[in-house]
């Protein structure tokens, strides 16, 4: 799966991961794929909420320990 943009928000806490994600998505086209990784305790819930609100399709959601990586299509 081709990922058009990877966003690393590891060690950043809410709301900075969401702000960074929203800022990047605004610059991308519909149909492009984004991968975002973070370790903030509320990171997973926040990104899933963000995708639901923007009707973005979740392609992958992986957790390794405290680190979560989510791939979605804009």
């Amino acid at each position, binding site marked *: 799966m081709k990922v058009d943009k990877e966003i690393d928000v590891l060690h950043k806490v809410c709301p900075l991961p969401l702000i960074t994600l929203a800022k990047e998505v605004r610059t991308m086209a519909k149909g492009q794929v984004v991968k975002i990784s973070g370790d903030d*305790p509320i990171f997973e819930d926040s990104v899933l909420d963000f995708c639901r609100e923007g009707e973005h399709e979740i392609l992958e959601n992986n957790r390794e320990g405290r680190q979560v990586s989510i791939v979605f299509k804009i």
Partner: protein
Amino acid sequence: MTVNNHTDQQELIIRLREENDLLRQALNDTECGRKLIQQKDEFSQFLGISKAIVSELDLSKVFEMVANRAREIVAAEMVIVPIINPTRDRYTYMGASGKDAEELLGKGFKIQVGMCGWVLQNERSLLFGESNDWWMDEKTIWEEGQQSALLVPMFDKHQIIGGLSAIGKIGGGSFSTHDLDLFTLFANQVSIAIENARLFQDHQNIIGKLKQEISKRKKIQTALEKEKEQLAITLRSIGDGVITTDTDGKVVLINKVAEKLCGWSQSEACGKPLAEVFRIISEETREPRDNPAETILKTGEIIEIANHTALIARNGTERSIADSGAPIRDKSSQIIGVVLVFRDVTESNRLKDELLKVKKLESVGVLAGGIAHDFNNILVAILGNINLASQIIGDDNHQVYPLLKDAEKASLRAKDLTQQLLTFSQGGEPVRKTAAIPEVIKDSADFVLRGSNVACQYHIADDLWLVEIDKGQISQVIQNLILNASHAMPQGGNIQISCENIKTISDPGILLPRKNNYLKITISDSGIGIPKNIIDKIFDPYFSTKQKGSGLGLAITHSIISKHDGHISVCSKLGEGTTFTIYLPASSKEPQSLIKSTEIPPVGKATIMIMDDDEMVRTLAQRILSQFGYEVVLAEDGKEAIQLYENAKDSPNPIDLIIMDLTIPGGMGGKEAIEKIHQINPEAKVIVTSGYSNDPIMANHKEYGFCATITKPFMIKELIRLVSQVLS
């Protein structure tokens, strides 16, 4: 302890300070004491900060100060201030301080999103750091190297309004529970400041909106006042009368013209029932007309007020008016009043009546013109034959003679009547000759007053100027005036007639083409006088106070004087009498012939041609002229006259004089015939005759080549004298 003086006070302060320092030193020596001192200092700083924030009322500044001070208090890399939106389903970062602050300011999320969302929904604090359990779901625990976070909710009196969120401890590591306590305390303090500032801002917004509303309303009010003023000016300036009423039919507005016509001012009329201010009646029946406001309010339709409606003003003055009325409707088409528009048509009606009279006169003129020709020819025959018969009898004592004289008189009266009617036909142009007015006046007055109990007293200036007049017409004027004067004095009396020269007319009321050299004639009686209300109408055609009057006498008088470029006016007092004053322009010419010859000139020898379509006229003229020794040739029309004239030209008996009728129905008349005659003989002598004494050709006959005129019907003496004059 009692302090007696200033020195004691100073000493006491110094001693207390020393004791304070000692206590502080002692506390510093223990861990617990140090913590207490730190807490005291933090608390003092904290109170100072809170005070500063609470005193600020600008909400954006409050958020900025809160974020900045909060960051200082807990030594955070960044502090953000999430505030729940009025809809309470989202929150927005209203304040931010530190790294990435600009990026976050104004951003927002749904209430359930993020750590802030968790705090705002659960209304609980959150410390993501080393010494505190993670309360959310134990999914993760803070580890060294991660950013620590500290979040506390903020409440006003009743509910959560937002929170404070500190992210990243300066220098790394985690926020402590002590930071949490300070943050909570700070949040409680600043929530009041935020609420105050919010209330203040709401208040300011309301005030701002109110100010805007007031300003808007003021503008609308100003515009309305301007419009009202313009409307009032327009209404007051409008040439028609305008009255508006409310739905009770009471006057709301009355414009200037309406004020004048009704006799009520705006302040007097306002609130009065319309019928009181706007009193209208039928001019014919004198009955009050229906109240137009009531009719309009009842039917909701536009109405026109009937013709012949009179408005009775407050002072009783009556005016003819034309009027219309309409309902006034608001935006929803509801009737909110009535507007009436009316105008004074008194003068306009008078002019219409005048016009009608003029048209009637024109009809009379056409009728008169139509019958004049034939009627005059008949009169020529009657009058001429009576003259001839009188001459043939030749004896004044003959028993037939007075009968013939009476018949002649009757014929002359018929002639006068015809001339009166003819004044109205063909434009009535006077045939002017230079004349002395006293003779005309005396002859006319004596003629009218013969046998009556009224006499004339003359006051005539010796050096009276001559005038250029149509004697017949001026005689008619004098006769009319004298007759009226005599009728005004049924018991008899004197009529004063005066004539004088007027060098300059100074009265501005007398409108004349020039100001200098007029003859003033005044005719005064001491009769019953003319009532004031009809004095303006006496010159109107068909206006008469006499049972048998035609109503034409004074109208003709006025017409004749006007056509002579003169002026006539009247002045009267009831029971005292009436004076007519006439101005006629003085002539600069010498009199043509002021000595009236009554003698018939000696018989002449000449050949005279009579051209007339009427056999009676031809026969009479032949009889008269033959009796005086003239040879007479007769022609029916211009064509025959030309032929006869040409044939006779080179014969032993050429035609010396032609008397030709101006108008030949269906044939060549005098105007055309004289041109042909003059082509044959430019020296030919031609007299023109017509019943239309006021025909322009008769008035200006010389311009058309005629050497004299004679108006039909004519007397023998008149004809013979003229023929004799022309031939000599």
